[in-house]
């Protein structure tokens, strides 16, 4: 096995052309999968320390998050706390402190877990993902990107995320079997804008319901343009339960998740910042 520590994204992408190459972020998933024999890359390209990939910055009305920013760094970011609360909340509860110190947001997407904590929040916040490969740069909406199979073409590096800052309120909640180190059994992220008391531009995303996190355009359409009151909240909760029941159909987890999602949705709505 070869191991490279490129000095730039350019170099990383070039090295990414090697046969059997895998980009290595924090390693919290990949190192374990290699040990378990689930993946056996011939070549590791360690990008976790690349300064270009470690930036959190505001660029006009867009928040730019480098793919190698760790969950701890995101948790400690005031900018994130103020402007992308759903994501900030998701980063607080992912894994344990030690995992958050090492795991990266790019790795969270690249690993492709249905329960990835950051993904529903990024979906709700309408994030775009920027990819780099030998072909060049590609910017694609995360929602569209998540429809690709396989997720990443060989040699493609997750470069950064662009999160539009539109003055949205957002919230996130997850259900795990314990408080720390719990892989999400269910997660919900909600983002919305209000005009007066009216909900505009609602976006609702679910994690750990099916193979990948997804947005629900149906819920968004049904609950946008209405007054944000107790009825709205109650119907959002029952609406999410219907959606999960329909999505999971006869899956073994359906009876449980179709009920439990109501509580998770309730919590996500309670955490919407004022």
């Amino acid at each position, binding site marked *: *096995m*070869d*191991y490279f*520590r490129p000095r730039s994204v350019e170099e990383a992408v070039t090295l990414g052309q090697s046969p059997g190459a895998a980009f*290595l972020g*924090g*390693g*919290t998933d990949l*190192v*374990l999968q*290699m*040990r378990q024999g689930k993946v056996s890359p011939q070549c*590791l390209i*360690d990008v*976790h*320390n690349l300064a270009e990939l470690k930036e959190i910055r505001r660029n006009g009305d867009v928040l730019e998050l480098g793919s190698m920013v760790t969950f*701890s760094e995101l948790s400690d970011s005031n900018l994130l706390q103020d402007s992308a609360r759903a994501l900030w909340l998701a980063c607080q509860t992912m*894994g*344990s*402190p*030690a*995992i958050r*110190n*090492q795991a990266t947001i790019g790795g969270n997407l690249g690993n492709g877990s249905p329960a990835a904590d950051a993904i529903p929040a990024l979906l709700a916040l309408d994030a775009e993902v920027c990819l780099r490969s030998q072909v060049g740069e590609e910017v694609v909406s995360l929602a569209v990107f998540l429809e690709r199979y396989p997720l990443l073409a060989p040699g493609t590096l997750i470069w950064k995320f662009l999160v539009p800052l539109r003055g949205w309120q957002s919230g996130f909640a997850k259900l795990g079997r314990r*408080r*720390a*180190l719990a892989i999400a059994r269910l997660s919900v992220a909600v983002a919305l804008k209000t005009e007066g008391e009216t909900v505009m531009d609602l976006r609702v995303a679910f994690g750990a319901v099916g193979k990948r996190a997804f947005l629900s355009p149906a819920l968004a359409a049904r609950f946008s343009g209405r007054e944000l009151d107790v009825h709205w909240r109650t119907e959002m909760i029952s609406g999410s339960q219907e959606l999960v029941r329909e999505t999971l159909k006869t899956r073994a987890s359906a009876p449980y998740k179709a009920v439990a999602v109501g509580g998770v949705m309730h919590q996500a709505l309670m955490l919407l910042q004022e």
Partner: protein
Amino acid sequence: MNIELRVNEQDFRLVVEPDERLLDVLRERLGLIGTKEGCGEGECGACTILMDGKAVNSCLVLAAQAVGHELMTIEGVGDRLHPHPLQKSFVELGAVQCGFCTPGMILSAKALLDRNLQPSEEEIKEAMSGNLCRCTGYDKIVKAVQRAAEEVAR
């Protein structure tokens, strides 16, 4: 591959496999057996070490990834003549039972105290939430961290 690691303020030149875990290099090549393997998948925290002052699970980090970082294992925290206040308080308050979780617990606590000298009970529990104790000594562990925080602050 050749790597250089800085562990407990000492530099080591090593030849390792690219897929060798930091945990194994610390234990087997450097003889730093205070770092333990309890689960091998980041669930138990027995392998916790500090990397640039932050707690990480050394079972989920490749040795090659640790190059350029400052590492600290339990052996670098203190010694019998100069114990760290955490080491002292863990012994004095009975926060040590079987001792297998202890090095990881102390390192997670040290990462906390190094940036917060007045942690609340909640903050202590949060900082230690990735470290399991199966002898069920959490209460004493939290008290030991509180006592050490007071001593460090003094």
